């Protein structure tokens, strides 16, 4: 750890500290002035209607896409200048599966493991596939996988990265009921590792049970930030109009 990292780590009171993040796609602003702080080790639920900017926020925080305005730090590393360090400490489960269709599940994991300079033996990777119940299909090409199985493989890939900040973009999507229980179990694993977890989901009650805090996005703006338990009612997602408090 260079001295610079040491200083950054000490200064890092927050795992994620976003200040006025904005991002546009062509004419439309997908993210507008998002500001919030998350202490290390807490788990946060991100809720909002479709197109409210959830995925954009996660991709900006994961240093996949640059913010057009505003700034943020992840574990003390600045999103603008230290994108490499940010990527090293973050694991993102994105809508996109990040997989190679033509290759098998084991090969996809092995490629990721080699880039992460981890053990790439079959004995090291098979347990990971077993964790997501894909060990039987380890040597089948991903092109033969269903959407749910791809999501499971993507989850295994996220698990492999051992990120100290884990961003999950609608992990429950495309999964079957056993898949839901799998996500809950993995959620527990991430928390057990002391990682900060930010999960975007539409399953409000399930998220509220797992997470400490909750954020609500609407039209790219942060509408509500509070304890996760109160999100389903206070977050203003179900009732047609926004309750007075949240405006």
């Amino acid at each position, binding site marked *: 750890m260079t001295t610079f990292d040491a200083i950054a780590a000490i200064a890092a009171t927050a795992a994620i500290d976003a200040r006025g993040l*904005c991002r*546009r*796609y*062509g004419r439309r*602003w997908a993210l*507008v*002035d998002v500001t919030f702080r998350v202490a290390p080790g807490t788990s946060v639920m991100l809720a909002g209607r479709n197109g409210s900017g959830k995925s954009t926020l996660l991709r900006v925080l994961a240093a996949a896409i*640059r913010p*057009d*305005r505003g700034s943020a730090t992840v574990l003390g590393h600045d999103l603008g200048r230290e994108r490499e360090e940010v990527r090293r400490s973050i694991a993102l489960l994105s809508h996109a599966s990040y997989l190679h269709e033509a290759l098998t599940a084991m090969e996809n994991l092995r490629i990721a493991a080699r880039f992460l300079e981890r053990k790439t033996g079959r004995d090291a990777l098979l347990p990971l596939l077993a964790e997501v119940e894909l060990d039987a299909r380890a040597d089948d090409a991903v092109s033969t996988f269903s959407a749910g199985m791809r999501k499971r493989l993507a989850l295994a890939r996220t698990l492999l990265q051992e990120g100290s900040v884990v961003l999950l973009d609608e992990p429950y999507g495309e999964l079957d009921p056993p898949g839901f229980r799998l996500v809950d179990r993995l959620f527990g694993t991430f928390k057990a590792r002391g990682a900060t977890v930010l999960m975007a989901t539409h399953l409000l009650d399930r998220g509220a049970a797992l997470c400490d805090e909750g954020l609500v996005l609407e*039209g790219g703006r942060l509408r509500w930030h509070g304890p996760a338990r109160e999100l389903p009612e206070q977050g203003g997602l179900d009732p047609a109009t926004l309750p007075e408090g949240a405006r």
Partner: protein
Amino acid sequence: MAVSDRLNPGAGYALMVVGALLLAVGSYIGLFVAPSESYMGDVYRILYVHVPTAWNALLAFTFAFGSAVAFLIRGDFKWDARHEAGAEMGVVLAGLLCCQGSIWAKPTWGVWWDWDPRLTTTAVMFFAFVGILALRRFVEDPVKRATWSAVATIIAYVDVPIVYFSVRWWNSLHQMQSSPETVSAPFLIPLRTNAFGILFLMAGLITLRTRLARMRLAQEMAPPLPEVAS
């Protein structure tokens, strides 16, 4: 993003007017005052506009290259605007140069294109930068457009010396330099006047074109409006 630039539009127009005047004077001297050359007769007068265009075309591409490098290093979008202006001006001048070159080659060598290394290199640069302008047109995201075209400009510009040498070796068997190298004193006056003429005209055009690019960028990257009444 403030739309100010060092030179306000007035300066742009002024530069263009000065350039146009110099060009008119230089061309007048070149066409009517300067004596006809012993061997070439009057055809050589094309050089009075051909050689200055060549110098300024290279200058425009160099300006675009400098702006591209500055943009990649500093990330300030005024360099991207200058890059776009320089590239567009360079393409216009290079295209003009190629046409002049073939008009010059017909009476002198009897063919429409004499594969002169300098001229052929300009033609290659013309197509390279037309490709870059097309790239800018096909990419919507302003930041990607700026970064990618800057990268393309740097690669295209670095390639120019290699293109020049490969064409010269490839062409060395046919004939020596086509335009006379040593131009004696009285011929220099119109040549220099036209050179400065095109230089000023180019500077004015680039200033205006940069302003135009900056205004478009400011509009494209305008900050979001505050609270929107949904």
